């Protein structure tokens, strides 16, 4: 039993962290609200770095990395609230496509709905769409679908409802469905861990600087205890995410249970972190000009996406009770 990442894993993670700090500051997330199509250089830089095609086999130019490696990187995309379908593309699609072609480096983008829905996140910048159907997963190109934009509470998500008007090719059957779903749920859990971290960090920073009654508000126990609770939830969600990633990579028969434990816990942790962050910020956090809501809303939608905490705990319950 050795539960730690290698120095290589961590160096890759640090490189992604640095890249996102540069290419995806909060201003880029904010800009994504008012824009259709891709913004900033983060996506292509992640593609060049090999992150987007990391799961693809080496034969087709990928890095053949497993989820245990990828979740560390996805956690960073959560920290940045990267407004791109990185989980859908890098964790879900790359595990299905035999030859990802131009999707390998993100020149073309794949997105996916959760479960059998046809609402696609980041639809306006996607070239290919995964469709989860009974017993199979199909892939449709942009020319074979029509997209009708729909509202999202998170304006950076650019949701659209898809209607298939042309052909789609089957890219997965049988167990592929559950495996793809588990990768999507776990990749989302990793992002939720990152979002929790970001919101806790933002709030610690604010509570240290903001003074009332002549002292930093972070010196008050009421504020400290809220933040301690958020930090606690994060502390105990993260190991479950890493463990589930290992289970996926090693084909553990209990993978679905492990993924559900991770997603349920990460969803709850991010929901709590958001609630605490907003409360401890006070009115400034409630204003649209302040960045917190960018992370808060992402946390809300991802906490519910790919199965919310109740759904995942129910899946655990079906296995253990």
């Amino acid at each position, binding site marked *: 039993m*050795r539960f730690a990442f290698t120095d290589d894993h961590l160096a890759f993670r640090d490189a992604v962290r640095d890249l996102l700090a540069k290419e995806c500051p909060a201003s880029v997330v904010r800009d994504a609200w008012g824009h259709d199509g891709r913004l900033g250089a983060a996506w292509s830089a992640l593609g060049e770095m090999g992150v987007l095609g990391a799961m693809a086999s080496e034969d087709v130019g990928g890095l053949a990395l497993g989820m245990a490696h990828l979740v560390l990187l996805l956690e960073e995309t959560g920290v940045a609230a990267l407004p791109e379908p990185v989980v859908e593309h890098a964790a879900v699609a790359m595990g299905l496509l035999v030859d990802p072609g131009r999707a390998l480096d993100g020149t073309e983008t794949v997105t996916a709905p959760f479960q059998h829905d046809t609402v696609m996140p980041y639809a306006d910048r996607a070239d290919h769409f995964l469709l989860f159907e009974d017993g199979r997963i199909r892939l449709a190109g942009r020319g074979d679908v029509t997209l009708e934009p729909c509202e999202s509470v998170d304006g950076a998500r650019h949701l659209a409802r898809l209607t298939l008007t042309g052909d789609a090719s089957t890219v997965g059957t049988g167990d592929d469905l559950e495996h793809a779903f588990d990768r999507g749920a776990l990749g989302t859990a990793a992002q939720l861990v990152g979002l929790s971290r970001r919101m806790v960090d933002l709030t610690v920073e604010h509570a240290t600087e903001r003074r009332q009654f002549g002292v930093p508000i972070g010196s008050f126990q009421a504020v400290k205890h809220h933040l301690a609770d958020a930090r606690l939830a994060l502390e*105990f969600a993260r190991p479950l995410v890493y463990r589930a990633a*290992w289970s996926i990579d090693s084909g553990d028969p209990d993978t679905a249970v492990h993924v559900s434990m991770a997603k349920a816990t990460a969803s709850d942790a991010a929901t709590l972190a958001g609630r605490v962050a907003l409360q401890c910020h006070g009115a400034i956090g409630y204003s649209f000009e302040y960045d917190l809501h960018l992370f808060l809303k992402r946390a809300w939608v991802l906490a519910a996406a790919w199965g919310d905490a109740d759904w995942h705990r129910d899946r655990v319950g079906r296995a253990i009770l």
Partner: protein
Amino acid sequence: MDLTFTDSEQRFREECRTWLEANVPRGLPSGDTREGFARHLEWERALFDARWAVVSWPDEYGGRGASAMEWLIFEEEYYRAGGPQRVTQNGIFLLAPTVFAFGTKEQQDRILPRMASAEDLWCQGWSEPNAGSDLAGIQSRAARDQAAGGWRLSGQKTWTTRGAFCTHLFGLFRSDPDAERHRGLTYFLVPLDAPGVTVRGFGRLDGDEGFAEVFLDEVFVPDSDVLGEVHQGWSVAMATTGAERGLTLRSPGRFMAAASRLVDLWRDRGADADPRRRDEVVRAYIDADAYRWQTFLTVTRMTGGEEMGAESSLTKVFWSELDVRIHETALALLGADAERDDTGWMKGYEFALSGPIYAGTNEIQRNVIAERVLGLPRR
């Protein structure tokens, strides 16, 4: 990363399991009563004779030199087999790490083997009537007796767990009367049969005589029973608090076993329960698992040479509140039957409720998390 147990870890687990399944006593009375304590000592000595009492200690002191990971495996198997709470825990898990870190070779050789074999039974003498969460408010004092080559201890300790049944006390005393707060304290080891010691047991919430107050009146302690440097007791003691809050006192095995019993209880009674309780049962099971994996992550880091610092406060809050939730859910499943429950859930609940209080209240722990993990300002 390799989340499978190695062959040798697996063999260790099987060896633990085989012995524990054959030897763990059934139906022991509470170890927090005088007669129950005596029964528990028989069990502790059986553990020692089979070299399971202190697996992580070196062979020369009665251990097996087990790694931290193997120790966790032992704990999982111990509680899985239904092993009772260790009445020797305060010596083995709280004092011993300090003796290993700060004791002289002479002290180690004298103290550790008798602790392992449950011949000497140690209780913790920290809290005082006016020093609880604010431990640095200790008023019990140590006066220098140069002629006799030692110290004279006076004052009162209280909330001393199983103090009425133990033979020795480890505690902090103010050795420099001019120093304040955490300065000028010294860590002493005190035999409870020394002249001038009076121990009075008293009942806990559950009625057991699990508490004691210890009065000291000019009790002589030789220099050889000072642990660490004179006046440095605070920093010496902090090594033990890390162990207490953290995983050594309450390893995941205990809560995995409790969560697993809760799952069994749901299978038995769930059909008649409010369906919302199902989510609570699953949540408890997941949380116990989260503690287990968080611990593996921590132990891997510690094996790599990192120290466990203020993070132990995260652990303490988590396991203590998990324990309360597990028992609350169990009692809800039992409904009115909980009143006359003979399966141990009510007794366990009473004990679980002490978790957020002892070893530093969870309010204090949350302050530590906020200040030392998150870096928020102290004032």
